[in-house]
C-alpha cells in the first residue's frame, strides 16, 4: 500500500504542474475562448463514436476531460474556483451526476458565465430535462416521443421510420453558424423541444419543418401531439445576460461520427449530398458556444467637444460634442475590428434624449457627433448593443450637463434697444437734473 502511495503523490504533483499553464490561459475577459472543458458521458463508448466532434475540439486547443456522468470524482469547483470553462453533457440518461455536481451545480456553473452543451435523447432523464427547462427549453413530456417528419425525412435504404430528419431550417445568423452557408441538411434523430415563450434569451437554431410532429412512432395517435410543425425546435441556443452560452440539442446522434460521415438526401429531392451538414453545423456551433466567435468587447469610450481632444468633466447645454467607442470581436486567437452599421449610442437621462447610429471607420472605431440637448442634469452616454448571436455590450459613462453661466447669455439684443435707450436716457436725465436742480435760482 505504501508503495502505491508514492506514485499517486507524484502523479498529483505532475497533474498540478500540467495544470499550471491552463490556469494562466484560461477564460478571462481578454481571452474569452474556453480552454478546459469537462465532458460527461453516459458511456465511454461515446468517446469513440463521437470522436470527430471531440477531435475537432481538441485540435482547436481545447483541453477535454472525459468523465462518466456518475463518476464520484466529478467536481467543477475547487476552493471557490471553477476548474473548467465549459461543460458538455452527453449523458442523456443520467439521473444523478456523480461527485458534487448536481442540477444546482450545473446552473451555478452557467450563472457564473460558463458555457454548456447539452444533448438529450428520447427517454432523457428528469435531470437532463430539468437542466434544459431551467434554460428555457421544454422537451416533449412523452419520454418515448421522437420527432417524425413524413415529408422532410432523410431518404435511407435501411431506416424507414422517418425519425431521421433532414433539417435545413436554420436561423439566419452568420455569427452563430459561420459565414459559409450550410448547404447540406443536418441529420437529426431524437426528441424535439419547444421554447418557453417567457424566456427571451433562448433561440431556435434548427427548426423542424411544418409537417413534423413529435410522437411515439410505435403507438397510434389519439390526441393531437403537443409539439407540431415548425414550433418544434431541434437545436436551440441560449445566450445568458452574463454572456454564458448554451446549446441544447434534442439529439445526441447529431454529434456522432455516423451522422457526420453519412450522406443525405432529403425526401422529395433528387439531389444527394455526399456528406451531411452535421459536421459543419456542429463545428460552427461549437465555435460559437465556446466564444471563438461573436464575442465583442468595447473599449476606449471617449467623448469631447467638437474641435477639442480632451474629455471635459461636464458639458454645457447646446454644446457640440463628438463621441467614439472602439469595438472588437474575438476570433479565437486575437481581437479584430468589428464592422457593423447598427451600433447606436444614447444620450440618456431617465429616457434617451438622443439616440444615434454610429458611423464606423471599418477599423473598429465608431464615432458620431451631436448637439447636447438644452436640458441640464446628469446624463449618461449609453451603448447598448444586443445583436443576434453576439455577446451583449452594455456600457455607460456619466456626464453632467449644465445650463448657461450668467455671462454666457446673448447680449446687445436688438429687441432690447429701447430698454437700453431708456436706461441710458434716465442716466443722462439724472446727470442733467442734478446740475440744473442744484444751481437753479
Amino acid at each position: 500500500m505504501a508503495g502505491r502511495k508514492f506514485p499517486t503523490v507524484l502523479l498529483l504533483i505532475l497533474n498540478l504542474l500540467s495544470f499550471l499553464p491552463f490556469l494562466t490561459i484560461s477564460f478571462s475577459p481578454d481571452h474569452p475562448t474556453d480552454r478546459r472543458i469537462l465532458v460527461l458521458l453516459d458511456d465511454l463508448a461515446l468517446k469513440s463514436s463521437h470522436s470527430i466532434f471531440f477531435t475537432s475540439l481538441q485540435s482547436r486547443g481545447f483541453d477535454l476531460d472525459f468523465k462518466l456522468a456518475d463518476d464520484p470524482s466529478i467536481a467543477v469547483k475547487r476552493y471557490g474556483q471553477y476548474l473548467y470553462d465549459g461543460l458538455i453533457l452527453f449523458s442523456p440518461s443520467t439521473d444523478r451526476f456523480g461527485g458534487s455536481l448536481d442540477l444546482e451545480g450545473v446552473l451555478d456553473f452557467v450563472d457564473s458565465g460558463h458555457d454548456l452543451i447539452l444533448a438529450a435523447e428520447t427517454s432523457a432523464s428528469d435531470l437532463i430535462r430539468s437542466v434544459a427547462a431551467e434554460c428555457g427549453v421544454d422537451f416533449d413530456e412523452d419520454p418515448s416521443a421522437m420527432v417524425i417528419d413524413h415529408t422532410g425525412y432523410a431518404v435511407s435504404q435501411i431506416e424507414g421510420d422517418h425519425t431521421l430528419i433532414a433539417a435545413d431550417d436554420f436561423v439566419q445568423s452568420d455569427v452563430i453558424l459561420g459565414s459559409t452557408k450550410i448547404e447540406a441538411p443536418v441529420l437529426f434523430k431524437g426528441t424535439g423541444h419547444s421554447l418557453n415563450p417567457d424566456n427571451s434569451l433562448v433561440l431556435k437554431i434548427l427548426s423542424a419543418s411544418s409537417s413534423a410532429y413529435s410522437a411515439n412512432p410505435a403507438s397510434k395517435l389519439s390526441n393531437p401531439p403537443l409539439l407540431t410543425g415548425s414550433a418544434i425546435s431541434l437545436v436551440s441556443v441560449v445566450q445568458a445576460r452574463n454572456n454564458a452560452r448554451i446549446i441544447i440539442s434534442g439529439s445526441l446522434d447529431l454529434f456522432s461520427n455516423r451522422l457526420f460521415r453519412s450522406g443525405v438526401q432529403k425526401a422529395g429531392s433528387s439531389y444527394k449530398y455526399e456528406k451531411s451538414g452535421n459536421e459543419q453545423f456542429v463545428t460552427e456551433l461549437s465555435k460559437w458556444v465556446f466564444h471563438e466567435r461573436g464575442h465583442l468587447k468595447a473599449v476606449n469610450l471617449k467623448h469631447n467637444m467638437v474641435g477639442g481632444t480632451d474629455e471635459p468633466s461636464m458639458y454645457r447645454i447646446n454644446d457640440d460634442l463628438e463621441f467614439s467607442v472602439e469595438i472588437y470581436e474575438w476570433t479565437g486567437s486575437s481581437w479584430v475590428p468589428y464592422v457593423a452599421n447598427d451600433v447606436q449610442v444614447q444620450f440618456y437621462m431617465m429616457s434617451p434624449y438622443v439616440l444615434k447610429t454610429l458611423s464606423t471607420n471599418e477599423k473598429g472605431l465608431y464615432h458620431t457627433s451631436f448637439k447636447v440637448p438644452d436640458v441640464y442634469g446628469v446624463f449618461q452616454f449609453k451603448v447598448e448593443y444586443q445583436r443576434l448571436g453576439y455577446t451583449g455590450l452594455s456600457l455607460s459613462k456619466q456626464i453632467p450637463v449644465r445650463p448657461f453661466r450668467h455671462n454666457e447669455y446673448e447680449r446687445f439684443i436688438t429687441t432690447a434697444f429701447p430698454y437700453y435707450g431708456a436706461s441710458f436716457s434716465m442716466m443722462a436725465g439724472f446727470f442733467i437734473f442734478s446740475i440744473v436742480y442744484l444751481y437753479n435760482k
Partner: protein
Amino acid sequence: MTRNLGFLVVALVLVASLCEAKIFNPISDSHRSAALQLFSVSDGSFGSLEETYEALRTFEVLGIEKKADTRASTCATVVDTIGSPSSALKDLFQALRVNGILKCELNDEAFKGIMSRIKDAINDAHSLLDYYYSIGGLMLIKDQTSEVAVHLGDADRIFRSIKALSQGDGRWRFSSNNPESSTYAAGVALETLAGVVSLASSEIDHSLIATLKNDIVKLFDGIEKYDDGACYFDEKIIDAHMHQGSLSASSVVVHGLTAFVTAARGSLNLPGDKISGLAKFFLGIGVPGSAKDLYHQIVALACLENSRVSVPLILSLPATVLSVSRKDQLKVRVNTVLGSAAPPLSVKLVQIFSSGSKDASVIDQELKLDPESAVHVLETLPKNVDVGKYIFSFEILLHDPEHKKIYATGGRTTVPLYVTGVISVDHAEIAILDSDLGSVEIQKKLDLSGENAVALSANHLQKLRLSFQLTTPFGRTFKPHQAFLKLRHESGVEHIFVVGSSGKKFEIVLDFLGLVEKFFYLSGRYDIQLTVGDTVMENSFLQLLGYLELDLPDAPEKAARPPPQPVHPYSRYGPKAEITHIFRAPEKRPPRDLSFVFLGLVLLPFFGFVAGLFYLRANLRNLPKSTVPVTFAMLFHLGIAAVLLLYTFFWLKLDLFTTLKALGFLGMFLTFVGHRTLSHLASTSAKLKSA
C-alpha cells in the same frame, strides 16, 4: 451498479434502434478509409511501438498496403529496442510484434540475447502481464526465426501459476495481490496459456486443459446479451483513461479464445449463437472513432473469421425500405464478418410478422441466388404483403453439411422491413353543416393531390366536416400515423385535430359551438391545413386547403386569453429608431426697425425734459462765484459723470469686481467733493436767509 445500468441503457439506445431487430453489415470500405484516417502518420511513424503494431495489424487485416515510408524509421526503433539491454519487457514484446509484421532484418544473435532475458523474466514473473509479455515474446521469436529453438521446459509449472490467478466465474486477476477480477485479464490469460501450450516441450497435462476449457464455458455463461442478439463481455473495471470497456475486453477474450483453441487443437463446445452474437456486437459498433477501438474491433473480427471455433456468417440487407411503386426486390447478402464470400448456401424466408398484429404468416420460401453479385433475391413479395411495417425472418441453409461445424449462422435472423407505396386519396370533400338540422350548407370537393383554395365561412352555430378516403395499392384501407387538421388564426394561434377514421372513411366534424372556448372567441380568418403522413406512405403531404372565415360571438369577460405568440427572434434584436432632441424654439424677435423706432421714441421724453427745462427758464445762477467752490462743484459733477461712465463701461465689458473697485475710489472722491460743494451751497443759502 447504476453505472452499468446507465451504460446498458445508452448502449441500447445507441447500438439498437427502436426496432427489436437490427441489420449488421460486415466490414466495408468505410472501415478502410476510417483506418487510414485514424492511424495517422506523424514524423514518419505511428507513434509508440504499441500504436505502430495496432496500426500495422489493422492495415494487415483490412488488406491496406503498408506504407513503405514508415518502415525504415519503425525498423530502426525495433532494432534499437531489441538491441538495448535496458528496454522493458513490454517494449521488447511490442517490438517483436511489430517485427512480426514488418519483418525487419534482425540477426539471430539479437534473438538469442533477448530470449535469455525473457526466460529469466518468466521465472521472476508475478503478474499476469509479466507472463503475457514474456510468453508472447517467446511465441513471436519462435514465429520469426527458425534458427533459435524456443522451448519451455517447465510449461506445466508456468501453466499452473497462471491458472492460479483465475477466478470461479471464468475471469482472471491481473496479479495475486490484486483482488479485482477482470474479463480483460481472462482474455490475456487465455492468450498466454495458448502460448504456453504451443511452446511446451512436452505435452501439457490434459486435466489442466480440461479445467481451462471449463473456465471458458463459465466465462461464456456470463456473457451479456442485447435484445438484437449481440453479445459482449462486460468489463467491471472501467477506467476513463485506459478505456478498457466492453469492446476491448470482448476483443481480447475473442483473441485469447481463438489463440487457445488453435494451440490446444481440441474442440470446444461453444454455442454458435454466442459466437455470432459476438460478431454482431463488433459489427454493431459501426465505424469506431478511435484508433484503439478500431484495432480491437478489426482484430476481434479477424480472429472470428479465422477461428477454429466457428466462423460467424452475417446476413445483411442492402435495403430494408422496399417500394411497391418502384417494384423493389428484396435482396439478402450473406458474408463473413470481414466481408468475404460465404460458402455455398441458400437463404430462406421463413416467416413474416406484420407489425401491430401478433400473428405471423409462415412462408418458407427460398430466395434465388444471383451468382454474379452473390445476392439472394426474392423476386416478388408474397401476396399478402401490402404496404406497411413487417418483420421478416430468414434462415441460412448451408449446402455442405461439413460446413455446419465450421460456420455459425446464428439461427434465424429477423429484419424489420418497410414496404412503402403510393396511397391513393379519394373522395375528399369539405363541407359546412347546419348544426340543428344537419343539412349541408356548402360542400366542396377537394383534390388532395393538387392545389386547393377553398373559401368558406361559418358561424358558431355551424359545423365543419372534412372527409377523405385512403387506399393502398392493393385496395385496402390505409390508416396513417399522422392525419392532422390544423386551423391557424391570423394572429398565429393554432389548433390541431387528429382526423379519425370510421370504417373506410376518414372524417372529422368540428362543431364550432363546442369549440368557441378553445378558439378563445377569436373570429376571423383561419387557414386550413391538412397533413397526412406515414412511414410507408410515399406521397405524404402537407396541404393548405384554403381558408375559413369564422364568425364567433364576442368573448365574455372571464374568457381565457389566447396564449402569447412567440416573438420572432430577429425582431428582438436590430437597431432602434433614432431619436433626436427637439430644441426649444428661439424667442420670436420683432423686426429691427420697430426696435429702432421705439429707441427713438424712448429717447424723445429726454429731449422733452431738456426742452421743458428751457421752458421753465431754468438757470445756473446758483453756481458759486468764487473759484474754489466752482472747482469743487465742477469736480462733483465730473465725478457723477465719471461714475455714470463707469456704469456704461460696466455694462459694455467690465466685470462687477473691477467696477466696484473703481466705484470705491470714485465714491470716496465724490463724497469728499460732494460734501464740499453741498456744504458750500448750504452755507450760501443760510447766509441768504439770515441776510
